[in-house]
């Protein structure tokens, strides 16, 4: 039986009057890659952003239900949101490096979370190595991060998440702005990261989902329609909607 790392319980989300997520119940097993798939606008990004409380700042978002990181209720007022985001990292659709040097992109989070100064260079090097970026940037760590290629920027964004040693990494279509070669590199990276992290990834790309996922969740109009192993969802979908979607009949 898989160990459950992250879970949503009867989760509903409204933007103003409009209900975007409808009674979502889902368990993400530890050290596995779970893909969220579904047609555009079905609420994948919205669901993903619930897990690190990214909706906190939008005043018209209202959430009920619960999300748990192991036993910790992440919407409990007692728990610090910054501590939760340190444990649940996020990589965005468009690479968003800070307008600072490569090194400062990596050191920023370590500094605000007050890691010991003398350990920082070592931590940065190992995170960059894990993200397959070290060899490409080790001689130009002072270079502005925005000068890197799109694919390198995205690996830097993954590296700066990894450097905090989170438990869960959320990724929202991390390859959608990248060329096929960069996409391949990131997919390899994701597979290599799962031994240490629990990964939840939104993807539009059915081939990608099949290449990297252990589990797949199919969403439609704000509901979780089907959730199972990658094999089951793609080869033997139970629901008619899922069958049509993975068969390429809509989306």
């Amino acid at each position, binding site marked *: 039986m898989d160990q459950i790392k992250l879970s949503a319980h009867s989760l509903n989300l409204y933007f103003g009057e409009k209900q975007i997520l409808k009674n979502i119940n889902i368990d993400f097993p530890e050290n596995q890659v779970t893909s969220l798939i579904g047609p555009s606008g079905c609420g994948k990004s919205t669901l993903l952003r619930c897990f690190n409380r990214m909706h906190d700042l939008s005043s018209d978002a209202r959430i009920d239900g619960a999300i748990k990181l192991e036993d910790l209720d992440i919407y409990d007022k007692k728990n610090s949101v*910054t501590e939760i985001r*340190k444990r649940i990292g996020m990589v*965005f659709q468009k690479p*968003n490096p*800070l307008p600072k040097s490569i090194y400062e992109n990596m050191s*920023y989070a370590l500094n*605000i979370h007050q890691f010991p100064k003398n350990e920082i260079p070592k931590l940065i090097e190992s995170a960059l190595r894990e993200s397959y970026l070290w060899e490409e940037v080790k001689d130009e760590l002072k270079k502005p991060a925005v000068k890197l290629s799109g694919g390198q920027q995205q690996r830097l964004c993954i590296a700066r998440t990894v450097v*905090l040693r989170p438990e869960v990494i959320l990724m929202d279509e991390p390859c959608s702005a990248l060329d096929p070669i960069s996409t391949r590199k990131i997919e390899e990276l994701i597979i290599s990261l799962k031994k240490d992290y629990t990964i939840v990834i939104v993807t539009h790309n059915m081939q990608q989902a099949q290449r990297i996922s252990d589990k797949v969740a199919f969403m439609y109009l704000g509901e979780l329609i089907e959730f199972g192993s990658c094999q089951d969802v793609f080869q033997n979908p139970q629901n008619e909607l899922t069958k049509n979607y993975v068969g390429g009949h809509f989306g």
Partner: protein
Amino acid sequence: MKKSLFHFLNWTVLLGSTILVCLFLGIILFDIFSKGVSSLSWKFISRPPTQGMTRGGILPAITGTLWLTLITTLFAVPFGIACAVYLNEYAKPSVLTGIIRASIRNLAGIPSIIYGLFGLALFVQALHLGTSVLSAGLTLGLLSLPYIITTTEEALKRIPDSMREATLALGATQFETIKDVVLPTALPGILTGVILTLSRAAGETAPILFTGVAFYINGSATSVNQEFMALPYHLYMLSTQHQSIEQVRPLAYGTAVVLIVLVFVLNIIAFYIRFKQRTQQ
């Protein structure tokens, strides 16, 4: 055929208007510079006026204007930026913030003489600061606030949310995000707005008229509770209030040149900051 004639006419009208505007600007500048340049000299900007202001320089007016602008800056820039950060980063959209924003926009449209009256009532009288460079600087600060708030807010709006999300997702607080990413990135835009606002404030006469500017001060202002001389008022005084206007006319033009150059330098700095920002992206 008809269509191209129409286009041609359109084009000539637009080009003609542009040339006309530039021409007026050129004539004004040429007029001022040609009449003022004869009185410019090192003495003119390094000496106080002498002999009933018919001779000598305008040093106290220059230092007075610099003092005044410094006080305006110290007051208006921190408050203006803080207010813009609050409105753009913290305030939830609501009727109240809508009203606050509309009020700020309206404040920018109030005639500057009214700020002068208000400064007289508030700083000079109610707060007992007297007619002084402090009262005048604070009055100009009030005048500048709406512009600084509005331009800073525009600069903050141009920072995409993805930048804020980057640090928030790493566990930074909202304050850290603003301090470490949002403000540094918006800084060139904020500075441009601040400099243009200050260069406008430096040329204002009406708000300082009742609040501390003086006809003539012996020597430069040394403390903030003294009256002071200022370039725009000195110019006004030389060209309308002096007992021998014809005689001091070259000095008035010389003062105008100094004021224009001062404002021009500030504008060049703002232009340079914007240019550097654009080439960096």
